[in-house]
C-alpha cells in the first residue's frame, strides 16, 4: 500500500467534474464516484491488484451527493483507503455522508447560490447592461463560488478523513444558505423592479399584461412549485390560441 501521489489527487479532483457522467437510477453516482477515485486507488494499491479490485467493487455501489460537494466524500475516501481502513468502516462513512452532502448541496447551491447569481445577472440585463456583461458576470461570479466550494470540499475531505463531518459543521453551510436566501429575496425584488420599470419591460406592455403578471406572481407564491408545469402549458396554449385567433381573423 502506498500514499496517493499529488498527480493522482489532482486527477481525482478533476474527475470529480465528471462524476455525474454515468448517473443512473440504480447506483446513482456510484460508478462516477469510483471513476473519479481510480487514479488515487491505482496508486494506493499499486502493489496489490486484488485489493484494488475489492476497493473498486466497494465504490461502484450506490452513492449519491451534490456534485459540488462530492469532493468531500472523494477526499475522505482517498484518506480512508490510504490508511487501510476496513471495508465496513468505509461503507459506514459513505452511508453517513451521502444524505447530508446531497441535502446541504441542494439547499446551498441549487436553491440559493444559483438563483442569487442568476437574478443578479437578469437584473443587470433589465437595467440596461450589455448582454455580454450580464452573461460574463453570471459565469464569473457563479463559478467563483462553485470552484471555491469544490476545492474546499476536496481539501476538507482529504485533511479530515472520516472526521470530515467536523469541517462541514464548522463551515456552517446551513447558516450560509440562510444568509443567501435573504440575499435571494432582495435580488428577486430588484429583478421585479427592473422588469417593471426597465426599457422594454412590463411597464411598456400595458396594464393588462402587468396585471396578469401580478396575478401569476401571487399564484406562484400561494401555490408553489406544482404551478410551474401548468404555467408552461398555459403559456404554450395561449401562444397557440393567439396564433389561431390571428389565422381566424
Amino acid at each position, binding site marked *: 500500500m502506498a500514499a496517493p501521489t499529488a498527480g493522482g489527487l489532482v486527477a481525482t479532483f478533476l474527475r470529480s*467534474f*465528471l462524476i455525474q*457522467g*454515468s448517473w443512473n437510477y*440504480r447506483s*446513482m453516482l456510484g*460508478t462516477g464516484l469510483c*471513476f473519479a477515485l481510480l487514479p488515487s*486507488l491505482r496508486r494506493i494499491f499499486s502493489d496489490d491488484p486484488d485489493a484494488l479490485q475489492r476497493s473498486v*467493487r466497494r465504490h*461502484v*455501489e450506490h452513492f449519491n451527493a451534490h456534485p459540488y460537494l462530492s469532493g468531500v466524500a472523494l477526499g475522505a475516501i482517498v484518506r480512508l483507503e490510504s490508511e487501510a481502513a476496513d471495508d465496513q468502516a468505509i461503507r459506514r462513512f459513505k452511508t453517513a455522508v451521502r444524505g447530508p452532502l446531497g441535502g446541504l448541496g441542494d439547499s446551498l447551491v*441549487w436553491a440559493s447560490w444559483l*438563483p442569487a447569481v*442568476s*437574478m443578479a445577472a*437578469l*437584473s443587470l440585463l433589465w437595467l440596461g447592461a450589455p448582454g455580454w456583461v*450580464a452573461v460574463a458576470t*453570471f459565469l464569473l461570479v457563479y463559478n467563483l463560488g*462553485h470552484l471555491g466550494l469544490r476545492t474546499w470540499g476536496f481539501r476538507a475531505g482529504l485533511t479530515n478523513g472520516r472526521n470530515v463531518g467536523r469541517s462541514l459543521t464548522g463551515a456552517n453551510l446551513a447558516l450560509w444558505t440562510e444568509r443567501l*436566501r*435573504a440575499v*435571494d*429575496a*432582495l435580488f*428577486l*425584488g430588484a*429583478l*421585479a*423592479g427592473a*422588469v*417593471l420599470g*426597465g426599457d422594454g*419591460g*412590463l411597464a*411598456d*406592455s400595458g396594464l393588462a*399584461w*402587468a396585471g*396578469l*403578471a401580478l396575478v*401569476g*406572481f401571487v*399564484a*406562484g*407564491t400561494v*401555490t408553489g*412549485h406544482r*404551478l*410551474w408545469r401548468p*404555467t408552461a402549458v*398555459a*403559456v404554450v396554449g395561449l*401562444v*397557440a390560441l*393567439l*396564433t389561431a*385567433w*390571428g389565422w381566424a381573423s
Partner: protein
Amino acid sequence: MELLVISLIGGLLALDGTSVGQIMVSRPLVAGAVAGWILGDPAVGIFLGAVLELYLLVSFPSGGARFPEGAPATVVAVASAAAVEAPGAAALGIAVGLVWGQVGGFTVSLLRRVNGQFVPEPASASAQRVSVAHALGLILDFVRGVLVTLVGVVFGRQVVVRLVSLWPLPQDETTGLLLAGGAVSAGILLRSLGGFRRRRVLFAAGIALGIVGTRLL
C-alpha cells in the same frame, strides 16, 4: 452546415447540464447568448435566453427528479426565433423552447435508465469496466443533446416560419405575455425562500432598488 454546428453546440451545452462540469454554461441565459452569437443574432439570443432563465429560475438538476432541460431548449428557441424577424417569432420560439425543455427532460430520464443497464454490478466490477461504462455514459449524453437539439431546431423553425405571420400582438404586448408567465416562477421562488410574509421587507427593498436603478441607469 449551420444546423450541424448549432446541434453540436446544443450537445456540448447539454453535457454541462449534469454530466460535465456544471459550470452553468447550460443555463438559458448563457446558452441563449451563445446560440444567438453563432446565428448572428445576439439580441434575440440574449432576450430569449433571459426570458427562459426567468422561467427556469426554479428548475435545477437535483438528484433523481425530472427537470425541464434548459440548454437544448434555449438553443432550439433561439434558432427557431432567429429564422424570422417579427414579434411573433419570440413568442413562438419561447413556446417551442418550453415544449422542448420537457422533451429534453424526458430524454435525460431515458438516458439514466439506459445508463443503469450497462453500469457494472459491484460483484463483477473492474477498473476497466468502470471506465468504459462511464465514458459510454458521457458519449451517450452528448449524442442525446445533439439529437434533441437537431430535431428541435428542424421542428421549431417549421413552426415559426409557418405561423409567425398569423401572430396578432405587437412587440411590447408579446413581451408582456412572456414576462407574465415568468412572473409565476418568481412567485414560486419567493415561496421557496420562505414566503412573502417572511421576506416582504427585503423583497420590497429590492423592488425599490430595481425601480430606482432603471431611473438612474
